[in-house]
């Protein structure tokens, strides 16, 4: 299963990177002789109201999804991981202050927080990145802090510290390797969720703006064509599902390996 997930995920990454070469048409190429055409050989996924090729747009749409998910999760992991390490290792006032601030973000349901932040910042890809980063940072703080807290009391850390190692060295060289597994597992799980949240934001018109194709905004545009041209919404939806599924499979597999319980 993990292998299937990995293969599909790789395919999606290749699709995003090589979109310009792989897609049969540029994503915004209009063809007025082929408006809302049903799927055929010429356009396997059909065309939309501007005669744009849905297949090409689905391929290009992978870019927005991956870009937003990668950027936001990496940022959330970096910021959250650092803060979590500080909170767990330094403890005391630091721990208290960081937790207080994170509690604020935890006080609002995740998706609502994302939608709220994006709506306030105004629509756009960067709003989506910021929204998802804000939702996931507190989570990574927590996932980093708890094991660090447990680990720092252990003998080997005491020993290293007694030998005169600096705080930073202890944190990075000795603590980090021992607490990183659950953190990475959480990262992959969050990654597939980030794809879903980005799609939701796009669908609500809060992420990538047309004419840039994203799976979510294609679905949104296709919504009013459900009856006459369902293919406009069917294919991007399948794309989202396949992508999320692939990364979920990887996440499950990683969990079994890295974080066995």
């Amino acid at each position, binding site marked *: 299963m993990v292998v299937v997930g990995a293969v599909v995920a790789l395919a999606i990454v290749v699709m995003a990177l090589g979109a310009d070469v792989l897609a049969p048409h540029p994503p915004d190429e209009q063809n007025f002789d082929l408006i809302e055409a049903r799927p055929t050989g010429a356009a396997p996924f059909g065309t939309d109201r501007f005669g744009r090729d849905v297949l090409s747009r689905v391929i290009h749409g992978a870019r927005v999804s991956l870009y937003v998910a990668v950027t936001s999760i990496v940022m959330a992991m970096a910021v959250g991981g650092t803060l979590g390490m500080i909170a767990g290792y330094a403890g005391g006032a630091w721990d208290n202050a960081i937790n*207080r*601030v994170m*509690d*604020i973000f*935890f*006080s*609002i*349901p*995740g*998706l*609502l*927080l994302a*939608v*709220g*932040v994006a*709506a*306030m*910042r*105004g629509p756009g890809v960067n709003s989506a990145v910021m929204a998802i980063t804000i939702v996931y940072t507190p989570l990574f703080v927590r996932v980093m802090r708890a094991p660090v807290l447990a680990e720092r009391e252990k003998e080997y850390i005491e020993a290293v510290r007694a030998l005169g190692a600096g705080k930073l060295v202890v944190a990075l060289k000795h603590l980090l390797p021992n607490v990183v597994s659950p953190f990475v597992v959480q990262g992959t799980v969050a990654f*597939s969720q980030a794809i*879903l949240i980005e*799609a*939701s934001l796009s*669908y*609500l018109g809060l992420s990538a703006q047309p004419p840039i194709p994203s799976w*979510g905004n294609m*679905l949104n545009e296709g*919504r009013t064509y*459900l*009856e006459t041209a*369902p293919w406009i*919404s*069917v294919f991007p*939806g399948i794309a*989202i*599902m*396949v992508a*999320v*599924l692939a990364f*979920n*499979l990887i996440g*499950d597999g990683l969990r079994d390996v890295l974080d066995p319980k």
Partner: protein
Amino acid sequence: MVRLYSMVLTLLGLTVLVFLMLRLVPGTVVEQMIGADAVVSPAMVAELKRFFGLDQPWWLQYARWLGALAHGDLGTSWRTGKPVASLILERLPVTFELTLLSVGFALLLGVPAGIVSAARRDHAVDNVTRIGALLGLSVPVFWQGTMLILFFSIYLRWMPPVMWVDFLTDPRRNLTIMVLPALCLGTASAANIARTTRAGMLDVLRSEYIRTAAAKGLSRRLVILKHALKNALIPIVTVAGLQVGILLGGTVVVEEVFTLPGVGRLVLWSIYQRDYPLTQSTILFIAVMFMTINLVVDLLYGVLDPRIRYSA
């Protein structure tokens, strides 16, 4: 007490955050009110800004809002002229009902699926459930909603009533409206619960005393339902409790897809309308609700597992 104190502190932080973020949003309620085809002088814009107190420094606006909140006054919505509290109360039942129905659906589907899956481990049923759960976790709520609408309206020629009716006025009609949204919203939770149930059951089934019980000659069905399930209940309740909170957030998307008049849509609408009092107070209200749910889950957890106690 400690918990309550920290809740208040968190909320206070939230007020500052929400307030400042809103002030950073470009455009105000005034432009929203003026409309597209208008010819409006800067003087009129200034007058309207004065009317809403938008010409005052932000800290004064914040202090006034907080002062009112301290007296239990959530403020008055700029766009509707109605008290925010009454707008929330008008829409709260919708969001509540949607959340409860989804949780109910998720439990009804997820728990039995998890049990069966664990009991018939690696059989066909188990595989189907596991793949189904993975799919359930991966399907975007709004797409599922759109596809269901498509399926029902075109192939079955049926549409849920478009005009909202609350449960008390006409329960049957209300439920016909709610069934699709609840189904969509609950799918991912059902998948989560099924997975948790399965994992929990497998843990327990492997344990010593269950094997003893089985060795004593108790029927497999009894062992699974009575002993194993009881012990797997703690993680299930925890996950279900967490799902309530997550679903509460998910309502914002589902309400938008199915155009239900709930609190989530109210927040989104108020942000678009730059109706500051409405956004601020509604978000605060949701936060209180969300934190309360989480608190209740923690307390419940303590009751189920006596090893954990909270000094709430």
